[in-house]
């Protein structure tokens, strides 16, 4: 447990990707089975415990110490798990520190009542960092700034002869923690574990964001195909050996949420595409898709009201043949034939967008043709000769997003941030002008953003907030916002949705601070009707 705790501790404070890789790789090298396998499962998010609920921890700690002293401590630290880890008053005569695998075994097997007793005993035996790691592990949210992919990458590097990360990802779904067969292979002691797991996930190929100023000069338009970038979620639909599954682009299995789509998969093969809500072949808004996402089960009503479908743009396997080694041009032909054969309203083809040169494509992106392209997020560029390569290789695929929408809004509330921003007011609620029933001009909140500014700008905004506070509500301050006194943000966002949760009736997608308008009087910021017009435009294509 100690080595695992130290690993989490260091990961949580290390920003550099390379340093994180070194930390995880060395941990996997120096730790024996099965501990290292459980650690890898925790890092990749493949470990969760149903019986372990952290709610009782607070009660347990308050039974052991003065609640007032605990409260002051919690107030100072700000994070419950960390506070408990630090203040935990260990009962004397504690036993030895548990091994990670011991903890995992016990948590997997124990009932809820047993778990409490076990955890209290472990907290007694561990040091503060170990306690913190244990509490993180229990809650299942490590939040140490490490993606599952990076953890797999570190595993791929751990042996005497590193293997490509795609090789690990390819077999990942056939593996089970604590992955002893994986480590045996990586260390050259065993065969490569079989990826012959029908219905498995294939690691996705991702696109680089294009840098308009640099990339176009180097690219020949004849080498590239263009298609619209759809505003849904990327999925992989697998129908193989009688197993049908729908995965997100990170390999999460979401088949249960989308039985309508899974049922539509008839021919054997694997397609890559965008999951969308579609009515009569037309793409509905992302808000509609959200009605289907994040639901464990679906009822008939949701299925009827929000019919989901796949807009396919690639094919990774056809029958038993792996097509990823074929060039995109060839895969595209295969895909067209495959989708035509499926002949299902649930699976259609993402059309290609022909173009003559970069200037023409830029004009199409700025002013998309009528129909679905109007709600696209932008364009995708794919080299005709590119094979399907896992990861985010530089060059074969680019995404070219539409320019964001911009408005000027007034800062209304600021909230303290988290983690390294916990001393800064870094989360901002901003509003635009509207009129109340009496015709009085006032601000109504339209969104919240917490990034888009530099560290230096954050310091300046933080100072502005402190100097212009009107009221404080816990971690939130209301800030002076009048026509001639206040702070204006130029806010960038990707789209608008109608919202019943917001008083203004609109909600922004992906808002961020584009620019700070120190120069602009708040009275000249935008008005709600401007947003309403934008929304009407987005809806009424």
């Amino acid at each position, binding site marked *: 447990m100690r080595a695992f705790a130290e690993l989490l501790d260091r990961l949580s*404070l290390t920003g550099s990707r390379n340093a994180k890789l*070194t930390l995880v790789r060395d941990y996997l090298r120096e730790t024996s089975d099965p501990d290292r396998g459980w650690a890898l499962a925790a890092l990749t998010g493949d470990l969760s415990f149903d019986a372990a609920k952290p709610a009782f921890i607070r009660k347990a700690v308050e039974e052991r110490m003065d609640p007032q002293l605990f409260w*002051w401590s919690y107030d*100072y*630290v700000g994070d419950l798990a*960390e506070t408990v880890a630090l203040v935990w008053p260990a009962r004397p005569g504690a036993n030895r520190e548990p091994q990670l695998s011991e903890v995992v075994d016990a948590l997997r097997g124990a009932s809820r009542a047993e778990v409490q007793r076990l955890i209290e005993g472990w907290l007694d035996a561990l040091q503060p960092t170990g306690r913190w790691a244990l509490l993180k592990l229990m809650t299942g949210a490590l939040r140490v700034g490490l993606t599952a992919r990076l953890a797999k990458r570190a595993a791929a590097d751990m042996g005497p002869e590193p293997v490509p990360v795609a090789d690990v990802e390819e077999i990942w779904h056939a593996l089970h923690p604590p992955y002893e067969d994986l480590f045996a292979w990586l260390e050259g002691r065993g065969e490569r574990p079989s990826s012959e797991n029908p219905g498995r996930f294939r690691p996705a190929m991702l696109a680089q964001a294009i840098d308009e100023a640099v990339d176009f000069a180097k690219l020949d338009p004849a080498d590239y195909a263009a298609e619209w970038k759809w505003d849904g979620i990327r999925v992989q639909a697998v129908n193989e050996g009688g197993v049908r599954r729908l995965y997100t682009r990170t390999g999460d299995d979401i088949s249960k949420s989308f039985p309508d789509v899974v049922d539509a998969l008839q021919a054997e093969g694997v397609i890559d595409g965008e999951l969308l809500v579609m009515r009569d072949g037309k793409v509905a808004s992302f808000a509609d898709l959200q009605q289907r996402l994040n639901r464990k089960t679906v009822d008939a009503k949701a299925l009827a009201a929000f019919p989901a479908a796949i807009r396919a743009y690639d094919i990774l396997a056809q029958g038993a043949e792996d097509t990823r080694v074929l060039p995109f041009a060839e895969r595209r032909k295969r895909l067209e034939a495959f989708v035509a054969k499926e002949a299902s309203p649930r699976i259609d083809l993402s059309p290609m967008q022909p173009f003559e040169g970069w200037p023409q494509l830029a004009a199409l992106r700025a002013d998309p043709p009528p129909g679905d392209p109007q709600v696209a997020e932008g364009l995708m560029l794919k080299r005709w000769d590119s094979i399907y390569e896992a990861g985010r290789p530089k060059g074969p695929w680019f995404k070219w997003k539409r320019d964001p929408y911009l408005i000027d809004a007034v800062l209304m509330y600021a909230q303290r941030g988290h983690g390294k921003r916990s001393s800064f007011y870094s989360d901002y609620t901003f509003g635009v002008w509207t009129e109340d029933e009496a015709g009085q001009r006032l601000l109504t909140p339209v969104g919240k953003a917490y990034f888009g500014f530099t560290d230096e700008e954050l310091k300046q905004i933080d100072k502005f907030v402190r100097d212009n506070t009107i009221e404080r509500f816990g971690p939130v301050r209301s800030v002076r916002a009048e026509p001639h006194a206040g702070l204006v943000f130029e806010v960038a966002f990707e789209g608008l949705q109608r919202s019943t949760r917001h008083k203004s009736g609109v909600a922004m997608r992906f808002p961020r601070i584009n620019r700070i308008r120190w120069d602009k009087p708040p009275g000249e910021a935008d008005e709600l009707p401007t947003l309403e017009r934008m929304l009407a435009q987005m809806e009424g294509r």
Partner: protein
Amino acid sequence: MIRPQDLLCPKPEGLYCAPGDFYIDPVRPVARAVITHGHADHARAGHGAVLATRETLDIMGERYGAEFAGAMQAAAYGEAVPRDAVEVTLVPAGHVLGSAQAVVCWKGLTMVVSGDYKRRRDPTCPAFQPVPCDVFISEATFGLPVFRHPDDRDEIARLLRSVAQFPERSHLIGAYALGKAQRIIRLLREAGWDRPIYVHGALERLNALYEKHGVDLGPLEPATTGKKQDFEGQIIVAPPSATQDRWSRRFPDPVTAFASGWMQVRARARQRGVELPLVISDHADWDELTATVDELRPGELWITHGREEALARWADLHGVPARALALVGYEEEDDD
């Protein structure tokens, strides 16, 4: 009847002793001062007369120049020095070189001003000596139950593991120039690190002074010369403010470490951009503060600065009447 506040009472300048006519660690220039230790917020220049240990006087002389006060008097640990009707004795506080508690006796009343202190071993200064007293006047810099400083040897071991793990990077340790820096260097030597340690210029004079007082720091090199790659795999010690300064750009991809009790709280480490927090403090942690009160069982506990309310509550719950003096002008450790 003699009341403690007749002997010592808080004033804007600091804690004042009327029967002896002196202040303890005054934050403004006064006629007569007793100085517990050399940290700048406790030891200021410009007093008429100063009573302190020889080491503390040397530290003040190094910082402010030989003429830092009108008159200076050195007291050895344990030597009772009369001040008018009062007797002052300096006893070790275990904080930094020369640090002392001020034991003030008058008409059978004994009050102990701890200054800053810690209870665990420090290879650069003698250990805290508990003195039975009627009133114990304690600091409370780390007066919250979240502060439980680990064994400093474990922290140094973690640092050395990181040095081995990242041989192509340098390790840059932020450590307060007086006390912390020398303790870190000494701990590294005890852990077997016998290679040169590179030090920032601001540490050189105090390092020399520690050596003069018998603390062997081993081979030290200035961190200002040499090429970038010379610092790969090396350990550099610098004042905390320098670690994020442009000064640190001369080192190859440094792992920024910071040796401080505040590093116990993750958010504090993140705020400072610290990649390797080392929880090493020259102050008593919560367990040391409470154990000291428990051991001394004074008639009253007064608390000078820090997180007074939590320690006061603990003392009240444990039957020791406590009072927060809320003295101003003392900084938190490493808040430079």
